[in-house]
């Protein structure tokens, strides 16, 4: 089937199998390998991207379901080469080790801060609770997001 998906501001028209998962469309068809895949059961959140401005697990979305819609991935997080405060926060506060969960965590964090510019540590924990990090014990991810909230220069 044919799909038209707007990814990071560019419209892509592609012929795809109806069963193709969005994560594989992004990674294998478009070469956007920043979003990762980490589980078979929608548990890990390594694949989180935005679909029409809402974080989704792209391993649980068919490409067909994204037809005519907008997708935003980690590759679109910076602004004209300037790191987003969330990206800066992760680097500042050692919010990543292997970096595999990081794109998904940052996409969720960006969404959180857009909707709650001054979250508590508890609210950050809740926001990322559907995602798994095997490296950081979450402590520094929480600190990174709080750092970003503090250094936000006007939001998105």
């Amino acid at each position, binding site marked *: 089937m044919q799909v038209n998906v707007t990814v990071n501001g560019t419209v892509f028209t592609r012929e795809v199998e109806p069963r193709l998962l969005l994560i594989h469309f992004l990674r294998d068809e478009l070469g956007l390998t920043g979003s990762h895949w980490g589980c078979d059961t929608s548990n890990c959140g390594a694949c989180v991207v935005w679909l029409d401005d809402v974080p989704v697990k792209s391993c649980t979305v068919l490409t067909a379901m994204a037809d005519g819609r907008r997708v935003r991935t980690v590759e679109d997080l910076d602004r004209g080469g300037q790191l987003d405060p969330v990206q800066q926060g992760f680097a500042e506060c*050692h919010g990543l080790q*292997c970096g595999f969960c990081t794109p998904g965590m940052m996409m969720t964090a960006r969404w959180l801060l857009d909707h709650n510019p001054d979250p508590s540590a508890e609210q950050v*924990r809740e926001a990322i609770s559907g995602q798994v990090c*095997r490296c*950081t014990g*979450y*402590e520094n991810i929480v600190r990174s997001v709080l750092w970003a909230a503090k250094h936000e220069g006007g939001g998105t």
Partner: protein
Amino acid sequence: MTGRTDVPPAGGGAYGPLRRKEDARFVRGKGHFVDDIALPGMLHGAILRSPVAHATIRSVDTAAALAHPKVAAVITGADLAERGLAWMPTISADVQAVLATDKVRFQGQEIAFVMATDRYAARDALELIDVDYEVLPAVADALLAMAPDAPVIRDDLPGKQDNHVFDWAAGDKAAADAAFAAADVVVAQDMLYPRSHPAPLETCGTVACYDPLDGRLTVWSTSQAPHAHRTLYALAAGLPEHKIRIISPDLGGGFGNKVPVYPGYLCAVVGSMITGKPVKWVEDRSENLMSTSFARDYHMHGEIAATRDGKILGLRASVLADHGAFNGTAQPTQYPAGFFHMFTGSYDMQAAHCTVTGVYTNKAPGGVAYSCSFRITEAVYLVERLVDLLARELDLDPAELRLRNLLRPDQFPYTCPTGWTYDSGDYPRALRLAMDIAGYDELRREQAVRRARGEYMGIGLSFFTEGVGAGPKSQMDILGLGLADGADLRVHPTGSVVLAISVQTQGQGHETTFAQIVASELGISVDDVEVVHGDTDRTPFGMGTYGSRSTPVSGAAAAVAARRVRERARIVAAAMLEVAADDLEWADGRWQVRGDPEQGRSFAQIAMAAHSGLELPAGVEGHLDASAVYNPPNLTFPFGAYICVTDVDPGTGEVRVRRFIAVDDCGVRINPMIVEGQVHRGLADGVGMALMQAIVFDAEGNCLGGSFMDYLLPTSMECPSFELGATVTPSPHHPIGAKGVGESATVGSPAAVVNSVMDALAPLGVRHADMPLTPASVWRAIQGRPLRTDLAAS
């Protein structure tokens, strides 16, 4: 960072909480992982796996799969057997089936390998393969596997009549028995350290590319030990080693899971040779959890002997170790039970003895893997639980009992009853600091108040000593390869340098910390050091990253190579300043004339001169490049004190970890920020292992932990905000005084959580329950009917 320390940070000029170099690519989504690789014409591999745990294979019919329009080739065990590759050596002197030929011996075992033009088609084709199984009785219980009438799993081994793998012992039995005979008090406990899985967020995978023209094989692999893999491919597949290049790109975590060579890797290699195309194989999560290296699975009996006033006299342990269907544990050959016999831990005692028996079961092969420091995790858990049980028996505070028995600083270097020589330590200082951060006495007062109100609050301690940085070549090897690591340091004329190392980061930040080591030694900026790793064509031989060995071994090699460079620079500086080399001293990051510090040359000035026409003394080559191979004289022995505060709901059995305090001493900290990050990770492991993580089997050998729905990992909701502290006791034999730390918290923390929950439940008379302390398991323990947590309740 918020960590507290009672000593100032030590180390060279570039040490400190530097932000990581590697983050620039990761935060932009530009990390480069194995599954990101796409080569022209690349085929995608998928593995057909056994649905049953034990069965004879009558036939494998691949005709329909081969007829699939997108399938390029299918490999079976029979195909591999023709090439002599149906079996491969494990890293524990056993063999493992690559693709099964005779029987399957665990659920998820590899049977056939399909290569197709896309990953979905490869999966489709698996469904077209027809395997005829004759199901055999399976044994998933280590205790039953030792029974005389148990089905024999490894009938491929000549003459094998049982499931016994090895017997091993350490310590002095007579001395231990004498200590026990003289004791006022003996406390014993059976405990299970259940099977778990490291589950890095990135699963294992590979891209193999064989070039038939020049016979070169390039393998991108999720490998913690690229050089060891290269040698294994050469030995297993008979390929010339100089034609093999292993590239380990960014790894999405490892924790031991990415040490072995897995059947899928070899299938991709053979597949590329057969098809002439690059072949990618990346396992899915169930494959990762069901077939790659598990960890733990130790059935332990421990006994501790003491005087009535709380002086520990001796320790005994006997262990039944479940190794699964093939013995693939990753540990030095000389130690089939790893370093378990460091089980006297941090305490001063006269005697100890332990025995370990290994057994085959119809469960996934492997072993050791998961940040365990070669089985010290199991040992620490055993002794720390026993010490708590002893405290309860003696009606002593567990902190007080520990303080009475911890090794004293003046006892170092200390040789423990089973023969390990600990390098350095100040244990009471670490425990007191942890108690201070926790507000220990206040916590005990709060607990008393809550108990009076009928609330169940627990305070659990653990103290650990690890031996990491394997290791001395005279004492340990893996498959005959000594555990030394090389470092090459190239110096460019402008004074910037490239360090090539053999170890492989999986998130530990080597590109930053190794640059800090070199920068400190040479008085240059960290930005002027480029660290190359993960490519066997570009780096010197070494055994890789596991067992917390990067800093103890490879970090030492980097420091030694840098010091060689510095000595070469001294000769050049002497020629530049027209003085004798002996008249120079290294100060403030430059060589300068003793007593005349104005007269000196920076490293960059010297580097340029070394490449110039400057006349050098006879026999001096010029240039500054140097290399080193570091064969450690001993392990390093990090230690720490952990305190975990929990609240338990006796109605539901739910445990909340309220606080977790961790004081770690890993000697000199190159980058305290990275050290703290590693400790955070291990503390999360402790929460997970103690409360959630277990790979459970049913009686037929069905794995019930094959997904993240069933194998529960801690999330941000289960982990508390960790409170860290540090003491610094340098290692006397390590060039920069550092010790390993990557596994410390994984090793030390589970016991603190379990001790805390048992402390909470003490008023209910609960003495012990096995991990994981799920609500069901806690509730059952409260009812006086503890669960066997490794088997499905029947």
